[in-house]
């Protein structure tokens, strides 16, 4: 025997013929014995029959003509859109725009770097040299105390002629100094500065 709750759960399966044989027997037993469930069952049955009996509607005479017109309109719209895309490059995917933008940005970056590189092409004085200049009170000339880039090339000895006229009062013993591009760290002990009076 099944409970009223179980009966309620099986109503549709029974009405649709989807219930198994064993369950069907239990369902019918309950249907016979329970008046409340019987009323519910009949009520559901009437509801379904009411749905089945609902009148069918049919498309109007203009339906096909309207549909055809809408399809023609839509087709024209698609063709126009495709044409305008061809003219305005609207069909180009956004990824292509992104890539183009990235290429432009990288190019601009390199151009700017190259221009800046020309302006600041001169070699800076090594930090220990600058510190010694500050210590000796020659700070005024520190700003302009840079090697002439034409002279201070890697692998070429630097001497007193390497200084610009502004800081000619300085003389650095750099007879054995060879600038190496890879190694810009200088040993303070082995690179003494001499001040000329």
């Amino acid at each position: 025997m099944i409970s009223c709750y179980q009966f309620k759960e099986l109503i549709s399966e029974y009405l649709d013929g989807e219930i198994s044989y064993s369950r069907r027997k239990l369902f019918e037993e309950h249907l016979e014995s329970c008046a409340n469930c019987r009323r519910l069952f009949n009520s559901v049955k009437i509801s379904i029959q009411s749905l089945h009996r609902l009148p069918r509607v049919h498309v109007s005479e203009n339906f096909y003509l309207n549909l055809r017109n809408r399809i023609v309109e839509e087709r024209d719209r698609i063709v126009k859109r495709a044409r305008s895309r061809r003219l305005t490059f609207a069909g180009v995917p956004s990824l292509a725009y992104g890539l183009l933008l990235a290429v432009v940005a990288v190019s601009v970056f390199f151009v700017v770097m190259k221009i800046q590189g020309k302006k600041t092409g001169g070699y800076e004085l090594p930090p220990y040299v600058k510190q010694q200049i500050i210590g000796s009170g020659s700070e005024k000339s520190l700003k302009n105390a840079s090697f002439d880039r034409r002279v201070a090339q890697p692998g070429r000895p630097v001497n007193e002629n390497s200084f610009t006229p502004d800081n000619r009062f300085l003389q650095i013993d750099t007879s054995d100094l060879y600038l190496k591009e890879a190694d810009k760290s200088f040993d303070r002990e082995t690179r003494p500065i001499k001040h000329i009076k």
Partner: protein
Amino acid sequence: MVKADKTRYKLTDEELIAMFQDGDEGAFEELVNRYADRLLNFAYRFVFDKQEAEDIVQDTFLRVYINRHAYREIAKFSTWIYTITANLAKTSLRKRKYRKVMHLSHMGPNEDKDFEIKDEGEFNLLEKDLRVDEDVVQRALDRLPEHFKTILILRDIQELSYEEISKILDIPIGTVKSRINRARLRLQKEISKVLKGKK
């Protein structure tokens, strides 16, 4: 490949859509002839307005026309087209409900009395009224939650199988069975309420 000697009306829906995908517009016309009334009845029971239902069906065919290549023969054509109509009908109904809510919100405090119906004696009344007229059934249908309404229209008006409904709604067969049962129980309750409200 579709056999050329078959006349269109003998072809299956899947064969017709394949022909349409290959550029045969006549195949599309045959599909429209087959599905126009079926889809109209489905949409009509959803929105209960013939003009609105026709618009939904036209939109459906328009989408099929434009997106013909989106159909793949992994599902039945009927499943695909019903899914499109169901989505459009739901959208249309939601828009209308929104408009209705906006309209009701402008009513005075005593103007919505007709919407209140007391709930007593769920099915006794229905048992006496062996024939329930269309208006009552439609009103009861409209009072159902959207997922109950959809499944009842598909099952009891469109008479689709559990399997087809499962594919259209993208839910397991077990859920289809239980939802149909709950929807029917709820419908008989709503019919009783509507009948009681009328008397």
